[in-house]
């Protein structure tokens, strides 16, 4: 790809300094880029650091957390040094974010109309009347029937799917270049999930956005993402094109994750499991962070953490099993 990336994250580290002098390395040395029009999925279990990665990009990390190191470039512009006022301009205009639970993301005491027009008036400096017209248009764009009436309603009067549509309308209101969606459909039923994911794909096309989709659902990834990054213990352990990653899975963690899913087509008596649980971010094992749960663990894995290496073109893996494979070719 020759185009310039919309988002470029370089060696990002976000740590949380806990009370008892523990340091939770929630995001630990992550680098990736997202290009215009692309859908990139960030996959991992709870505690893997995927949401913190997104919040770091949005500069929404609060104490005791802090971005310790690294660069975040939006359209080539460094945003880590920006002051809160400058950052407010970036948020909404350049990048927007949708959260998992739209009920907690919307303000319960303001009408839907209030919340959408506020953004337009603040970011686009629109007049009241223009903002109202634009807001109704946006609601229609995201497939909300009776948009004029919905403008006067409060979040609790809407269903989960409708709320998420409102969130999408708000997110695209300033036509951002990058939309970050953090588990946008996890709280929704499967028939509504399909509607919302299709809507996001449609909006992505319409507004030429790039999409960073954070999810734990590999099915969603397979249907909607161009590229996948698998996170474990605050680091990316595997990164490739979606089809390549699902067909030629390399990392033992990714393999375990796929095997533990019940398969709709085959009947297995037992599911594959990954033994143990995700280690807390303040207490990673020495060496490879997956070593304590890995079925292929070697002595070396317990000593030092492997690097993320490109073992085939565009297929990156952080695992000693594939050491030197890239170099032989």
């Amino acid at each position, binding site marked *: 790809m020759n185009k310039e990336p919309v988002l470029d994250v370089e060696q990002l580290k976000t740590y949380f300094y806990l009370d008892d002098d523990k340091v939770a390395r929630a995001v630990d040395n992550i680098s990736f880029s997202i290009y215009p029009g692309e859908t990139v999925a960030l996959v991992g279990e709870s505690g893997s650091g995927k949401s913190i990665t997104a919040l770091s990009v949005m500069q929404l990390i609060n104490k005791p957390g802090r971005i310790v190191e690294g660069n975040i470039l939006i359209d080539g512009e460094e945003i880590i040094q920006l002051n809160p006022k400058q950052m407010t301009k970036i948020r909404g205009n350049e990048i927007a974010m949708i959260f998992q639970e739209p009920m907690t993301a919307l303000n319960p005491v303001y009408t839907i109309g209030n919340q959408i027009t506020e953004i337009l008036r603040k970011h686009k400096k629109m007049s009241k009347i223009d903002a109202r017209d634009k807001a109704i248009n946006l609601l229609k764009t995201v497939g909300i029937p009776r948009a004029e009436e919905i403008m006067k309603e409060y979040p609790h009067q809407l269903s989960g799917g409708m709320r998420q549509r409102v969130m999408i309308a708000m997110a695209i209101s300033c036509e951002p270049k990058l939309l970050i969606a953090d588990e946008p459909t996890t709280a929704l039923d*499967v028939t509504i999930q399909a509607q919302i994911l299709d809507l996001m794909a449609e909006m992505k096309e319409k507004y030429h956005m790039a999409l960073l989709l954070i999810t734990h659902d590999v099915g969603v990834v397979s249907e909607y993402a161009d590229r996948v990054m698998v996170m474990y213990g605050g680091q990316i352990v595997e990164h490739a094109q979606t089809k390549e990653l699902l067909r030629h899975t390399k990392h033992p963690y990714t393999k375990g994750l796929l095997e533990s899913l019940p398969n709709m087509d085959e009947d297995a008596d037992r599911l594959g*499991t990954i033994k143990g649980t995700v280690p807390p971010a303040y207490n990673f094992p020495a060496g490879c962070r997956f070593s304590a749960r890995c079925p292929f663990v070697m002595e070396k894995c317990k000593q030092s953490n492997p690097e993320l290496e490109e073992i085939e073109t565009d297929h990156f893996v952080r695992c000693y099993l594939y050491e030197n494979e890239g170099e032989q070719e």
Partner: protein
Amino acid sequence: MTILSKESAQDVLVDVQNVKKYFPIKGGILKRTIGHLKAVDDVSFHIHKGETLGIVGESGSGKSTLGRVILRLLDPTEGSIQFSGTEISHLKRRHFRPYRRDMQIVFQDPFASLNSKMSVAELIEEPLLVQTSLTRLERKEKAIEIIEKVGLRAADRLKYPHEFSGGQRQRISIARALITNPKFVICDEPVSALDVSIQAQVLNLMKDLQEDLGLTYLFIAHDLSVVKHISDRVAVMYLGRIVEIADKHSLYSNPLHPYTQALLTSIPVIDTDENPAPKEEKIKLTGDLPNPANPPSGCTFRTRCPLAHDRCAVERPELTELEKGHFVSCHLYTQEK
């Protein structure tokens, strides 16, 4: 309507016939009942001994209410519930108590369903204290046995819930449900709060325990792949009614109700084929679940159904057996009377 043949009636453990659960809606200044929310509306099915019946449905379909009604945590408005041949739907609380040890439930959220101020030992032994007259030592022995059975260590007895991860807490919930040696366990979304790798561990454990202890499960979930994995038969609920019930293989390979078809095609699937077969056209449902307090007339699914016709608005479809053991309630498959 009965969907039981005579020869199989003997090994039926739970038989639910025409059960309804209506919640009153109060309104006005006098808080009079102005309507009813039909959470469960005329549902019939049975569960054989040793079988797992899965119930799938979206939120608001009434699947959890149904589970609670069977356990008499809620009283049914109408209908009959037989457990091992005994009618339990109208037993007084006092008379129902002995049945509770045979019927247990595992809830969804292991962070909310365990009292954080009780140790694991207290949590697990509590049902014994209520249900049996075992001595302290006997209770302890029994608790240790079950703790080890669900894959925890005996030493974990003295810990408190916050010291465990979600998957381990769900193991505690399972141990607590199993300590009275129940015959029947209702699992209400037991793995939906867990990560997939942990979900697989808990599902495997539940299957093992079923084999070891000869348990019968009613497995309530919204995740169709999980339900398929664990169930023998599956019922699909929509707005308080069962729209389709069948053996899992015929339900998943040959779904008849348009709602089941839509559910199955809306699951995102993992595609690893080199040359993927042309995908079945997705059936996209438009709109949301209607308000259960004011459901559509006739077939409640008709407002979202791509195949709805005039008859659907007028007449409520009956659950009819189309193939052996495969029941569906849809006018597409029945002649107009």
